[in-house]
C-alpha cells in the first residue's frame, strides 16, 4: 500500500551508522533481490533490444530499436494500451470516490459498522482467479443472478454482458471496482481515524457545515494518503492480469485485452520475447510519465493552498 515510509529518516532516533556486521544481516535478502528481481528487470530491458524468441535455433542478436519501431506501427498494441488506460482510470476513479464516501460513512458511529468491515475482507483476501470466476457466475446469461434480477424487475431479458462488444469493458471494470474498493476504503479509514476529533469539533463549534468541515479539516489531513493510494491503484490496475484473464481473456474481439494480456500472449503463445519485452518497457515509460505529471501537479496544488 502506501509505501512512502519514513525509512529515509529511520536512523534519526539512534543516528548510528551500520557496522560491518550489518552487511551479513542484509545479504540474505539483498542477494535474492538482486539476482531474481533487479537482474531480471535489467535483463528484460536488454531483451527489448534483441530478436529473442522461444525455440529459436540461431543465437539471439541485437536489433537496436527495431522492436520499438514495430510497436509504433502495431495498432493492436495501441488499442490494448488505450483499453488499459480506460480500464485503469475506469477502475481507479470510481473506486476512490466510493471508498472515500464509505470511509467517511464508516468513520461515523453507526451500528453494523463491524459487519461492513468484516465483509470488506472478502474481496480483499480472495484470489483474483476466484473473483473472476465468481463474477462470471453472476454475469452468466442464463444461470446468473444479474440477468435474473433484470428479468424479475421487468427490465427485459438481460444479455450476455461479458461477450457484448459494448458491455464487456464496463462489466470487467465493475468487477475491478468491486475487487479493489475495500482495500482503498480501509486505508482511507485508517487515515481518517488519525485526524484528531478536536479539530472537527472546533470547526463545528465555529459553525462550519459538513462540506466545509470536510474541505478544511478532513481532506487536508487525508490528502497524502489519498494521493499515494490513488497513484498505486492506478499502476496496479494498469498492470493487472488475472482478473480479466479469467473474466474474458481479452475478448470479445480484443475489447478487454489489457496490455498485460497482450504482452503475455505475444511472449508465451507466440514466443516473441524481445517484442513483448519492448511492450513492457513502453508500459513502464508511459506509466512513469503519467505518474510524474500527476504527482508533481498534486504536490504543487497542495503547496499553493
Amino acid at each position, binding site marked *: 500500500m*502506501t509505501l512512502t*515510509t519514513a525509512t*529515509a529518516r*529511520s*536512523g*534519526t532516533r*539512534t*543516528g548510528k551508522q*551500520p557496522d560491518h556486521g*550489518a552487511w*551479513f544481516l*542484509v545479504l540474505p*535478502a*539483498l542477494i*535474492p533481490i538482486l539476482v*531474481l*528481481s533487479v*537482474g*531480471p*528487470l535489467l535483463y*528484460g530491458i536488454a531483451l527489448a533490444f534483441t530478436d529473442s524468441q522461444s525455440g529459436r535455433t540461431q543465437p539471439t542478436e541485437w536489433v537496436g530499436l527495431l522492436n520499438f519501431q514495430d510497436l509504433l506501427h502495431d495498432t493492436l498494441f495501441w488499442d490494448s494500451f488505450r483499453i488499459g488506460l480506460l480500464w485503469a482510470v475506469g477502475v481507479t476513479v470510481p473506486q476512490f470516490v466510493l471508498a472515500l464516501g*464509505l470511509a467517511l*460513512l464508516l468513520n461515523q458511529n453507526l451500528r*453494523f459498522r463491524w459487519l*461492513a468491515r*468484516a*465483509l470488506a475482507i*472478502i474481496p480483499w*483476501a*480472495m*484470489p*483474483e*482467479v*476466484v473473483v473472476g*470466476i465468481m463474477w*462470471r*457466475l453472476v454475469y452468466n446469461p442464463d*444461470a*446468473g*443472478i444479474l440477468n435474473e434480477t433484470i428479468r424479475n424487475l421487468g427490465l427485459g431479458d438481460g444479455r450476455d454482458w461479458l461477450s457484448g462488444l459494448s458491455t464487456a469493458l464496463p462489466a470487467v471494470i465493475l468487477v475491478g471496482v468491486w475487487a479493489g474498493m475495500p482495500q482503498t476504503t480501509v*486505508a482511507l479509514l485508517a487515515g481518517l*481515524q488519525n485526524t484528531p476529533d478536536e479539530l472537527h469539533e472546533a470547526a463545528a463549534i465555529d459553525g462550519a457545515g459538513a462540506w466545509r468541515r470536510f474541505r478544511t479539516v478532513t481532506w487536508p489531513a487525508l490528502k497524502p*494518503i489519498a494521493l*499515494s493510494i490513488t497513484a498505486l491503484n492506478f499502476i496496479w490496475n*494498469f498492470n493487472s*492480469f*488475472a482478473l480479466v484473464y*479469467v473474466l474474458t481473456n481479452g475478448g470479445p474481439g480484443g475489447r478487454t485485452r489489457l*496490455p498485460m494480456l497482450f*504482452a*503475455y500472449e505475444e*511472449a*508465451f503463445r507466440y514466443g516473441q520475447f524481445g517484442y513483448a*519485452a519492448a*511492450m*513492457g518497457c513502453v*508500459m*513502464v515509460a508511459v*506509466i*512513469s510519465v503519467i505518474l510524474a505529471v500527476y504527482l508533481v501537479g498534486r504536490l504543487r496544488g497542495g503547496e499553493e493552498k
Partner: protein
Amino acid sequence: MRTSKPARAGQYVALLCYLIFIAFPFAWLISTAFKPPRELATLHPTWIPKDPTLQNFRDAFDQQPLLHAALNSLIAAVSAALIAVVIATPMAYVMARHRSKLSTAATGWVVVSQAFPFVLIIIPLFLILKNLYLINSLPGLIMVYVVWSLPFALWMLVGYVRAVPPELEEAAAVDGASKLRTLVSVTAPLLAPGLVATALFAFITAWNEFFFALVLLKTPEKQTLPVVLTHFLGAEGVADLGPLAAAAFLATIPSLVIFAIIQKRITGGMLAGAVKS
C-alpha cells in the same frame, strides 16, 4: 457529533447498499456451489438452492486434480512465507535501526517494484529458470515468490522493528548482555507477533498468486490451485458451473480465514506507513 435523523437514515441506507454490493457475488458463488445440475440449467435461478447437494464438490475433485493442486499451493506458499520472513527480518532490522544509503535504496526499491508490469520480469525469469532446469518445478516458483513477497515483507517488518523501543535494547546492553543475547531475549519476543503476521500475509500472497504460476508451471501435476481452477473454464469458456463454483469456493477458505485473523495488523501497518509519509 450530532447528526440529524434524515441524515442518519441516509447513512444506514448507504451502508446497506454497500453491504449488499460486497456480499451478493460471494453469496451467489456459495448458492451456485450447492445447486444440483438441473437447477443450474433452468432459466430462473433462485438464491436458495431448492434441492441443495454436495455433488458439485465431489464432481470438482473428480474433474480436476484439486487435492494435488492444493498441496502444491500449500507447499509453495508455506515455503515462500517462511523463507521470506527468515531472510527479510535481519535486513528489516538493519533498515529500521541504522540510517544508511542502503535503507534509502531498499525503500526506493520497495516503491519501484510495485510499479513493474510483471511481463518485463517474467520473460527473463522464464529464461533464467529454464537454463537452471527450474521451469515446471515448485522450487523455481518458490524462489520467485520469495523475491516477490520481499518488498512488502520488508516494509511490514521495518514497521514492527521500529515499534520495539531501542531503549530496551540499550538497557540490556548496559546490563552487560551481548548483542546476540539482546536480540534473542529482548527484541525477538517483542517482534514475534509481527513476524507471524508478515509470514501469514506472504502466505496469502503466494496462495492467491496466478500470473507467475501460469507461466512457470506447465503440467497439471505441478500446477497450483489458481491455475488448476482456470481449467474448469474449459477451452471455449464453456464451464460446468456447479463444480467450478464448488472448487472456487474451497480455494478461498484458507485466505479468508487467515486474512480475518491478521486484517487488523495489516491495516495497522498501512496506517503506520501512510502517516509517516
